[in-house]
């Protein structure tokens, strides 16, 4: 069982969360070229090792998180709020 330390709720089993996908993707502007959208929607680096990925705390606070996780060992290196503004508020409160 992977344990994810949610910045809002504390450490929880991964079964409370829903895996989103590759968190390194930045979606292009709506009027960007089809090639840019093709890259963002369909193409993946599929890293074996530490990757940044999104998780949704769907059975908890329902916030999206950015998690650095090793895809071979499942070790988690860091967990942050995905929303930059919320992440800053959380940082300031520490």
């Amino acid at each position, binding site marked *: *069982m992977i344990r994810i330390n949610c910045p809002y709720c504390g450490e929880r089993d991964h079964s409370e969360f829903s895996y989103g*996908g590759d968190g390194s993707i930045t979606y292009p502007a709506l009027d960007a070229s089809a090639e840019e959208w093709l890259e963002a929607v*369909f193409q*993946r*680096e599929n890293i074996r090792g530490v990757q940044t990925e999104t998780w949704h705390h769907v059975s908890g606070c329902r916030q999206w998180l950015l998690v650095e996780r090793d895809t071979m060992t*499942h070790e988690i290196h860091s967990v942050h709020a995905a929303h930059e503004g919320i992440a800053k508020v959380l940082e300031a409160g520490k």
Partner: protein
Amino acid sequence: MTRFSAWSVFRNGFKDQSGWTRQWRDPEPKKHYDIVIVGGGLHGLATAYYLAKNHGLKNIAILEKGWLGGGNAGRNTTIVRSNYFMPGNREFYEHSLKLWENLSHELNYNVMFSQRSHISLLHSPGAIDASARRYNTMRLTGTPDAEIWDLNTLKQNVPHLNYGPDSRFPIMGAAVQKRAGTARHDAVAWGYARAADALGVDIIQNCEVTATTRSANSISSLTTSRGEITANKVGFAVAGNTSRLWQMAGFNTLPIESHKLQAFVSEPLKPLLDQVVVFGVGGAHFYISQSDKGGMVFGGDLDWYKSYAQRGNLPIVQDVAECAISILPCLGRVRLLRHWSGVMDMTMDGSPFICKTPLDNLYLNAGWNYGGFKASPASGWYFADLIANDRPHDTIANFNLDRFAQGVSMDERGAGPDPKLHG
């Protein structure tokens, strides 16, 4: 190679089984081959066999980083079916099923293919209508054994299911493919290996590709744990780890994510279930059959997050156990013997790739999602055809990496570009 026959079995019975010879050679890798297939799983072995058999090619090698049958070849639930709906997929998988039907004779090796029927349970009028559409399409396009069963027919054929009116999703009928079934997965690997070896293919185990050398627009040589090997043509058939090899070949991304899928086998039981039964409703996903040794072989969903680890998580064990009890309550006190996990290429539309690549002499076979085992004969057949003729066969015209750019993705499930949803 000794040919297997009733007579050879009988004769060796009198000779204390001493007359059997090695099934395939263990050759040292040569410096150069005409064709190198990377990956000694079912797809790679089948490809090498059909290259030699159908196209008369010589000087072929298979490079396998571990041992034959040690990857997903030995980690599946051995189900063979061709109940596909989309053009391309249905012809491909039906061709595969026809190859399965003659495989034991073709390879002179008993792959224990058992056409015991594949039964998908239906739980709502909507599911019956959708299945009628799919199975009618199959009948119209060359798969004659598609049937829809009503509840009474199902009860007569599979009496042990939970038909209770108080079950959460009462069973209303089933979509059935009678020529579908199971095969012994190890025997398929060994059978293809033995037949390919007899046609001169070098099967080189414990030989991991660690780097490639490019010259101009092709791969000039492969660096392996057993030395440098050059080849005129190179085929990749390493589903699960395709992205890593792709990056070794100097590329970056693919429409693939690696996910793990678990499978389970129970302690052996007396004969209980004559068919493959599939249960999928309300978020459940479960498939079960009984092996010839009596073990109940079953599986469910992916582990729901990307992973290269060949080990499964416990929430899915619980999920699969709940599914098992939902449709076969009689399994309640059966003990689990083993469970294991394999790493699979999950693609953006749930369909595979057998295609040329941006490099002139590199060919790709990848992206088998949940369907790699049943596909392996046709996968090898069409991949060999592609490598030998340097052009895709009409049937696999859309099995390429460009289909997303062209807007012709083959999304059998209609789940959209999220690999983990194409189970």
